[in-house]
């Protein structure tokens, strides 16, 4: 059975018009993309991982607003310091994405880590929504 091969995921361009109110988008020049993300739901928490290559911890802005998380990642473009780009297969750009939260998430316990160009957000569920084993007693 052949080994699983990784395939390129094409970057999705951000629809700037739909995000006109976002302050970050006006402050940086360059292209904007929606970062690819995976969402894993476990019994007691939800994990979101977003690919933002070229973004370091200091370049991530994450806000919690009402019922959504808004993530912005700025990329320091290595190519800007080069003399000339000879050959291009991908475009560099900043990242921006919104995630709507539902009621099961405990907003006060949200945490996140940025490493290797991946933002990992941990969203613990509220106590009431955690799965619990209920003991069945003999009646």
């Amino acid at each position, binding site marked *: 059975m*052949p*080994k*699983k*091969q*990784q*395939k*390129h*995921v094409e970057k999705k361009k951000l629809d700037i018009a739909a995000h006109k109110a976002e302050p970050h988008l006006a402050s940086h020049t360059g292209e904007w993309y929606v970062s*690819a*993300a*995976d*969402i*894993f*739901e*476990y*019994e007691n928490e939800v994990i979101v*991982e977003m*690919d*933002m*290559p*070229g*973004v*370091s911890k200091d370049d991530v802005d994450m806000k919690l607003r009402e019922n959504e998380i808004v993530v912005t990642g700025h990329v320091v473009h*290595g*190519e800007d*310091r*080069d*003399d*000339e*780009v*000879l*050959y*291009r*297969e*991908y475009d*560099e750009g900043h990242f921006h994405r919104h995630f709507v939260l539902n009621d099961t998430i405990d907003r006060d316990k949200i945490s996140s880590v940025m490493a*290797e*160009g*991946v933002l990992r957000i941990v969203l613990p569920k509220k106590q009431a929504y955690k799965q619990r084993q209920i003991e069945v007693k003999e009646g």
Partner: protein
Amino acid sequence: MSLMNILEDFDWLDTFTDEANRLLVGGKFPHINISVKDKDFIIRAELPGIKVKDLNVTIAESTVTIQGERKIETSEGSEGVVSFHTERNDGFFNRTIALPRDVDTSKAESVLSNGILTITLHKKKIAETKQISVKEG
């Protein structure tokens, strides 16, 4: 032969040709950009979520090969996952890129930082042209 059998044969054929293409061409992940800066060629690739220990960059006479594996924690049906939504890809990758002739393959640097791989290759010093005298024959 039932319809299901016919479809299975075509699936196998697709997989086989994909594999054959990959073996011949070496796959097209990661996508790369090549720039020039001063006397260097710079190859960049986006490789988020890859640890240095899972990445190999090798330079040969006229090629550079980027090879490794990305692992995503719960892509293979781990325990405890209630539901998931996947947009990203993981797995093995192996891509060989041909280099221009004037690259000095004895010196090269590669750095993986924040999910960006940067390979810097220095151009060979071109031998100076020498004047040769033309004798009358």
